């Protein structure tokens, strides 16, 4: 009974993680410029791989494995924004342009303000 429930939960986690990865890949191909592509890759992609790791932890069914999977999940969720932020900051400072339809660039005069 509990095994069946765990298997169904694992199946749900696996499918949703793969779906998030697919959404991230579609966004990476369809969005217009670098900064919007970064949204797709660093949010949906991270959640996708994190959910798949959680699925491993749930499927194993013992506490140490689940704790390791949870640690990996939090590691990814904590590091993805940092790397995306660093990359966006570097690209914006170097001068990679936003898409022409962007309406607002709050970092435009960042160098003057600091």
């Amino acid at each position, binding site marked *: 009974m509990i095994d069946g429930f765990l298997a169904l939960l694992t199946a749900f986690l696996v499918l949703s993680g793969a779906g998030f990865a697919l959404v991230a890949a579609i966004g990476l191909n369809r969005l217009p410029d670098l900064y919007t592509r970064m949204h797709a890759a660093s949010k949906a992609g991270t959640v996708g791989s994190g959910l798949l790791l959680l699925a491993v932890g749930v499927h194993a069914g013992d506490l140490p494995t689940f704790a*390791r999977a949870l640690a990996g999940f939090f590691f990814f969720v904590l590091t993805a924004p940092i790397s*995306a932020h660093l990359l966006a900051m570097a690209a914006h400072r170097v001068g990679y342009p936003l898409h022409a339809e962007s309406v607002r660039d709050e970092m435009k005069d960042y160098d003057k303000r600091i």
Partner: protein
Amino acid sequence: MTAAQMVLSFSIWLALVVLCVSFLMTVWRVIKGPTLPDRVVALDMLTGIVIGFIALIAIRTGFTLYIDIAISLGLVGFLATVAFARFVLSRGGREGPPGETAKAEMIKALAAPVPETRRSPRKKPATGTGPAVRRKAKK
């Protein structure tokens, strides 16, 4: 094999197919991506997808040791992205239309005259206030 196990097996196969599709789409972005940061973002995403693959293989085979491999791959991917961000920052915005810049730089490097070796290196004027300079000034 119970029904739940069959559902799990089928969903793992489906997830493998979906991850394959998203992997190929991300590779397409790496190939096409007009600028360097686009490619870096796509490579970061590629690391995430490979972590997903590793997790699926861990579920299929039952080796939970794969979790540690996935965590270390995530660490390597994070460090690579940070290093690429530093590289983008230090390289500056030298990027033209795709393929043009590299070719132009290569032509410029080939056409540049060979620099002559300087016969007599210019002497540096003694500036500074070190002990040697002070001794010379006393004489």
